[in-house]
């Protein structure tokens, strides 16, 4: 589904990703762990198509298509979803208008008719239940005045609305209490199917108790320094990242 081959990326001329290769197949969950500043969010942003990051070497294919040739919105319509580490507040843009436009853009891409207002509201009600998000939030402007946890929940809500093939969750667990964490995990697990895949970026293994990964990759200083099964997360938890730093 997603092949990242020898990916190098830099920002403002500074190289951040220094040769990353990952292969994600449908139905899989990959965890990317690593200390702060190792390049996890950079990788997530590059996958989503942020133009600030320049890919200097390597390639990315998504369902056989060269991802690097697509604009952010085209990647989204093709089924890539990024849950932001720091979701953006957009004053004045209502959640409803925003999501309706987004959902209908996805539908247009698939050759489907846009949803009518009532169909859309019905869909929204349905998905709100999945992530237990309140109407108080969905009636506001996008993320405006949301608490950290509310923002994260809103990301998962959007994911539920858009039903991506590949979801990239960038530290969706940080800033969440256990209850919220469980709801977010439930959202992710509900949406999981043999046809879609998830990349979970985190630096705690806590979330991985709820979303169980097939693979764990450790990113350090712009490189994957270790890849293994889910047991790697536990090992990291025990030994800390210094263990990796010393090894590499």
């Amino acid at each position, binding site marked *: 589904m997603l092949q990242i081959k020898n990916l190098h990326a830099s920002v403002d001329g500074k190289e951040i990703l220094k040769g990353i290769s990952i292969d994600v197949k449908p139905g899989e969950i990959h965890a990317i762990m690593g200390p702060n500043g190792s390049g996890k969010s950079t990788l997530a942003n590059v996958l989503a198509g942020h133009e600030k990051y320049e890919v200097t070497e390597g390639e990315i294919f998504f369902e056989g298509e060269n991802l690097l040739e697509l604009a952010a*919105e085209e990647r*989204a319509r093709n089924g890539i979803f990024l849950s932001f580490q720091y979701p953006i507040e957009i004053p004045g843009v209502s959640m409803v208008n*925003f999501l309706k436009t987004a959902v209908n853009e996805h539908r247009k891409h698939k050759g489907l008719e846009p949803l009518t207002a009532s169909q859309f509201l019905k869909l929204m009600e349905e998905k709100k239940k999945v992530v237990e998000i309140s109407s108080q939030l969905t009636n506001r402007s996008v993320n405006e005045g949301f608490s950290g946890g509310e923002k994260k929940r809103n990301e998962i809500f959007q994911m539920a609305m858009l039903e991506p093939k590949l979801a990239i969750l960038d530290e969706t667990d940080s800033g969440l209490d256990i209850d919220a964490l469980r709801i977010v995990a439930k959202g992710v697990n509900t949406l999981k199917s043999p046809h879609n895949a998830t990349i979970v970026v985190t630096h705690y293994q806590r979330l991985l108790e709820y979303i169980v990964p097939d693979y764990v990759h450790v990113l350090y200083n712009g490189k994957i320094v270790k890849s293994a099964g889910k047991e790697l997360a536990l090992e990291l938890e025990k030994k800390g990242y210094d263990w990796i730093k010393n090894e590499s």
Partner: protein
Amino acid sequence: MIETIKYTATEELADLFTQNREIYNEGCPDFMNRKRSEALDKFVKTGIPSRKNENYKYTDLRPVFQNDFTVLPRYVQQQIDLHELFHCDVPQLNTHLVLLINGWYYGHNRKIGQLPNGVVLGSLNHVCREHPHLIEKAYNQLAGISDDPIANLNTTMAKDGLFLYVPDDVKIDKPIQIVNLLYAKENTFAVQRNMFVLGKNSEATIVFCDHTLNHNYYILNNLSECFLEEDSKFNFYAVQNMHNGAVNNTHFFADLKERSTLHTNTLTLNGGLVRNNINVKLNGEYAHADLNGLTLADEKQHIDNFITIDHRVPNCTSNQLYKNILDNKASGAFSGRIHVLRDAQKTEAYQRNNNVLLSETAEMNTKPQLIIDADDVRCSHGATVGRIDEDALFYLRTRGIGEKEARLMIMFAFADEVLSQVNIKVLRQRLEELVNRRLRGELGPCQTCSFNFRKP
């Protein structure tokens, strides 16, 4: 040696008036003509403002008057029915529609729908002659003391415009839409003078639209004086849509008595050089003024909003929200001066000016000012000049929304904060539609009105 005499535009205008003084005085009451002479003297002293004038720091008006233009000291009969020529988009609003042409009340206005008893709505010139007592005492009371050169020029040359009087306890439900048309065979300097008198506990809403109907060079000098008696409510919504070679100089003076409420919203969509002077005096306790403005400008447009609010007595409140979106080589200026006088305790006065520049060459000058001479007041002011938030743009795009659409969503949201202050729902929706079309580049200065020329 040949001596060259520099003949300035100020002198030219003064001569133009003096040579035609008889015509200007003709058909006007003495009190009006006396004001002309006084105003002319003051105008000549200060001259057309340049940037040296502190109040015109960002707008030099001298070049405006250097083009050739004619003046219209007499009403000119129109050859075609203006109602046929002009169809505004806004009136699905169900308004009382009044047309003015080059500053004059249009002689063939259709009968205005049923207005409550005692309301006077019509030509200022006509009312001056028929009911001078309604005008004489107040005429030029506010504009005169402002001592603005362009206001003085208006007083010198004005003969007609719109007059509205709402008696005590009368509420006019339907908005009154006043359409100021500019339509002449030659380049024209049009002068329009309006007066709005709201009796005690009365209420009225004005939608005030400016339109150029052909591409001649127009300068419109449009001055309104508003008197809000105790407990009255006045909404004044301006929609400015002159073509981008035209000049629009507006003045809006208001005097607010106890517990009266003024709400203004100035939406500038097109116009080459637009200068809006708004001057509000809170003269009665518990009066409230809301002054809002939204400008969408591109090409080489220049838009200058110059606001002064005087809190003269205790317990008054005021709010200003002005926003500009500027593209290409457009330039904008905002000056909002809140003056809290010594006795005006318990004043609450807020002001905000936010601006978005869409190009490297667009320019914004903003100057919020607070002058506070009382001690028990709550005031705030803030101004920002920024660009479209790239992070917000990326966020929307990662949800599948195309870049162009995402930009429009962000700009519209920015603009809509001002429109959301408009408290007539249908009007707000129509204005939102206009703004949407303007942001999409689908609204030219002449596209709000569909032309409907009949073959001769």
